[in-house]
């Protein structure tokens, strides 16, 4: 086989693996295509999306609207549902032939299953769950200046470097690491959902995006796993990631769980169409379903307003909400770490403070 991951000069273009579920694109696709466009511009190369599925050609165009130059569609009945075997085979086969320089994959439950399998097969490195990406070194240095405590004036950087610099949290968010993969290609990374900003959709760009259908070879011998069935949990999913207003509750509601959640809902309504989130303590106690969890092992959110009620502000919680535009915290303990990242802090009992907040907000709306 002619594929050699160490022959790094033979690789070009930025690729995004586009995930679909039930024949629908997922949010991370738009986030990654938008981010990929930025990287392709920094590198002066093309942005290509690769979409695997069955009868999914019609949904491919939309990806062009976020900046893809080309979408490669791999269509096969065995690709309708995700299986590691089929997806890894098809993705690796195409990558070995086309040799992209960079391959981005959403860090969803599916992406984090597929990414490492493919990286091992392609004999290259994979950086997990990235929250920031740069090719241009100057941009990376600017990023460090605002997002780290490093004294960059005392450091020197290889300004001509064109390796993808992949930044990710580790040790539960206590440490950030920028990782490079200098000796092998493609340079692969999974990217945390909800972090990269989705750009404006452009119908014009969607029209000019090239769609290429690609022949897929899969045989029964390639498939060692079988999906027996897929069960959707019959519950209303909260869209924390898309929400403008999030009111989250923590263990501080424990003396009246139902009442506390009601208050949060009412406050979210008063702000206008907000949704209720929770700390892991609340999810682990079974007070809210798991899709409400904000934080390192839950969702990363950046709403316009984030209200934390009775949440202590553990680093793992902050990891999911500290980039909100405005943070309000209510906690009876004035030393709670949540106040370190809050724009406005109120020390007090949430059961007393929140009803006053709801009332005061309503008054301004009636005035």
């Amino acid at each position, binding site marked *: 086989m002619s594929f050699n991951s160490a022959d790094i000069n033979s690789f070009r273009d930025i690729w995004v693996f586009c995930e679909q579920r039930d024949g629908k694109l997922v949010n991370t696709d738009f986030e990654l295509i938008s981010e990929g466009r930025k990287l392709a511009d920094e590198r002066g190369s093309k942005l290509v999306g690769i979409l695997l599925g069955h009868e999914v050609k019609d949904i491919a165009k939309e990806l062009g609207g976020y900046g893809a130059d080309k979408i490669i569609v791999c269509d096969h009945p065995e690709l309708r*549902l995700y299986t590691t075997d089929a997806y890894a085979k098809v993705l690796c086969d195409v990558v070995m032939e086309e040799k992209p320089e960079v391959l981005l994959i959403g860090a969803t*439950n599916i992406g*984090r*299953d597929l990414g*490492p*399998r493919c*990286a*091992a*097969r392609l*004999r*290259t*490195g*994979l*950086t*997990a769950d990235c929250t920031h990406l740069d090719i241009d070194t100057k941009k990376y240095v600017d990023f460090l200046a605002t997002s*780290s*405590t*490093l004294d960059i004036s005392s450091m020197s950087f290889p300004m001509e470097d064109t390796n993808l*610099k992949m930044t990710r*949290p*580790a*040790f*539960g*968010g*206590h*440490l*950030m690491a*920028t*990782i*490079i*993969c*200098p*000796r092998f290609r493609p340079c692969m990374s999974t990217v945390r959902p909800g972090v990269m900003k989705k750009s404006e959709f452009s119908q014009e760009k969607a029209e000019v995006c090239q769609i290429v259908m690609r022949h897929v070879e899969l045989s029964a011998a390639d498939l*060692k*796993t079988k999906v*027996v*069935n*897929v*069960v*959707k949990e019959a519950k209303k*999913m909260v869209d924390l990631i898309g929400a403008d207003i999030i009111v989250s509750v923590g263990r501080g509601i424990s003396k009246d769980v139902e009442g506390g959640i009601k208050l949060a809902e009412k406050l979210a309504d008063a*702000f206008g169409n907000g949704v209720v989130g929770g700390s892991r303590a609340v999810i682990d106690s*079974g007070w809210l379903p798991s*899709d409400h969890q904000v934080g390192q092992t839950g969702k990363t959110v950046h709403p*316009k307003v984030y209200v934390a009620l009775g949440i202590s502000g553990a*680093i793992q919680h902050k990891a999911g909400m500290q980039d909100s535009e405005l943070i*309000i915290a209510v906690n009876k303990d004035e030393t709670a770490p949540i*106040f*370190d*990242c*809050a*724009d*406005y802090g*109120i020390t007090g009992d949430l059961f*007393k403070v929140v009803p*006053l*907040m709801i009332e*005061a907000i309503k008054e*301004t*709306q009636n005035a």
Partner: protein
Amino acid sequence: MRIYVCVKQVPDTSGKVAVNPDGTLNRASMAAIINPDDMSAIEQALKLKDATGCQVTAVTMGPPPAEGMLREIIAMGADDAVLISAREFGGSDTFATSQIIAAAIHKLGLGKEDMIFCGRQAIDGDTAQVGPQIAEKLNIPQVTYATGIKKSENLVLVKRMLEDGYMMIEVQAPCLITCIKDKTIKPRYMTLNGIMECYSKPLEVLNYEALKDEPLIELDTIGLKGSPTNIFKSFTPPQKGVGIMLQGTDKEKVDDLVDRLQKKHVI
């Protein structure tokens, strides 16, 4: 049937985490624990042992003191353990780590009915990559995010969690499964008998000499130097500036807040 359970000793990051001035972690100041997801993997394996009497082998790659953790797992019910330890393996990324662990399991032998259980993710490196990469190196199927595992003959039925539900997946042994924590999985404690016996059960140490000629080992992609990924910089995120603590009675604080929000056109 033999089940290999891959376990990693990790610093407990749930409490206070000390970071050195140079941005590295001060491991000495933190307690070492068994990675939480790995506790689920151990429990799932021991449950199958209860049901079938299979052999359960704990495998770790780490510095020599990791032996203590392996003895603990034997005291919970594992039959034996393997410690992979060598200076040459230090600083490995996930590609390198999985290559070494895969080579060790290959050397020990992976039979037709055998399985490998991993945790989904370690709380220090946080990548969730080692499991799938071991599976690829050994060319066996994988199922990740598992909360339930049933086996009859060579067929394994696994409940795999998705963000919005789950899949039931059927897979042939030998296979690799990564386990997550779940309310239905309650890791057991060490037993008194287990503790008494744990030092008399076999514990094999595999060093560089023992593994370097294994077919799955590529000497130029292991250790700190060989790993495909390198840490370019590591740093601590700055704390967001402390905001304003509102003063007065509850009512005064709330009125002040609402006033400020109005001025900012938030409400």
